[in-house]
């Protein structure tokens, strides 16, 4: 009886070691395959929250939520002149514009002069641009950074959120999403 219990405690003795090994393996696995740090907006599939924005540049009208339900799907691009990936994204947005896609911009924490310079240097795919100096509209859309793009259908419902820049390789997917939103 006592011997049996002794044997059991001997095998139990290795339990903490096995547990440690398990934890180390789990840590290695998570280090090798890190989880995504993207925080997707929960508003996908829901109507745009109401917002109005001040004009961002003198030469363009501003954008408000009411302007976005035009009967045709469009892209709302959240960008900033101080955002590095936005520079390369503008070229892809230009291409989408060339294919007949309507794009509006929301400039986050930006100055009119900086936006004018940014557009002059990199190109201007935007029909309208609104200024969001304190990220309030960005937060109300559930967006967590720049650049981000929302595909809004003709009724003003958010159909797709793209986190990070739209790359050249994303163009067919974006066009398909726009088609789906029709």
């Amino acid at each position: 009886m006592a011997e049996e219990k002794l044997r059991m405690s001997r095998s139990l003795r290795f339990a903490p070691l096995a547990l440690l090994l398990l934890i180390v393996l789990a840590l290695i696995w998570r280090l090798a395959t890190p989880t995504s740090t993207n925080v997707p907006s929960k508003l996908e599939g829901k109507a745009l929250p109401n917002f109005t924005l001040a004009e961002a540049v003198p030469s363009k009208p501003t954008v408000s939520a009411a302007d976005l339900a035009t009967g045709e799907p469009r892209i709302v691009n959240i960008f900033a002149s101080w955002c590095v990936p936005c520079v390369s994204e503008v070229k892809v947005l230009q291409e989408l514009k060339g294919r007949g896609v309507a794009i509006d911009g929301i400039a986050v924490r930006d100055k009119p002069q900086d936006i004018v310079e940014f557009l002059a240097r990199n190109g201007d795919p935007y029909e309208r641009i609104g200024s969001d100096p304190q990220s309030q509209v960005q937060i109300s859309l559930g967006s967590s950074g720049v650049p981000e793009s929302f595909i809004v259908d003709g009724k003003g419902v958010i159909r797709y959120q793209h986190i990070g820049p739209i790359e050249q390789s994303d163009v067919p997917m974006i066009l398909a999403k726009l088609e789906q939103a029709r």
Partner: protein
Amino acid sequence: MRRLLILLALVAAQPLLADSNLPPAYWANRQLPDPKEEAKAQALMEELRCLVCQGQSIADSDAELAGDMRDLVRRRIAAGEKPGDIRAWLVQRYGTWISYKPTAELAAWPLWLAPIALLIIGAWLIRRRIKLKAGS
């Protein structure tokens, strides 16, 4: 091996953080004049997760977006909105991810049950010990 090394290097990689040229929002780093309101705002800000420096609360983070969220929280508290309603408004946009306050959702159950389970296991171990000593 090389792929693994590259993947491991990604862990240490910093997201491309750029800051705007605008000053922080008005209420980002300023306390509300009413201490009661400020206490409410502070308590809420400590339970809201920063979208940029994930793992920090917006009360702790220096990220611009965290500053803009503090501005949002203080403005709404000053306008008489309840902290719970502001949290719910944010959860509607970012999911429960944004809130540090534990919920009773299914995924959190192991967290609630773990202390009870550990207590039961501990009691069982102690009982066994006492029995073993009594037996020898």
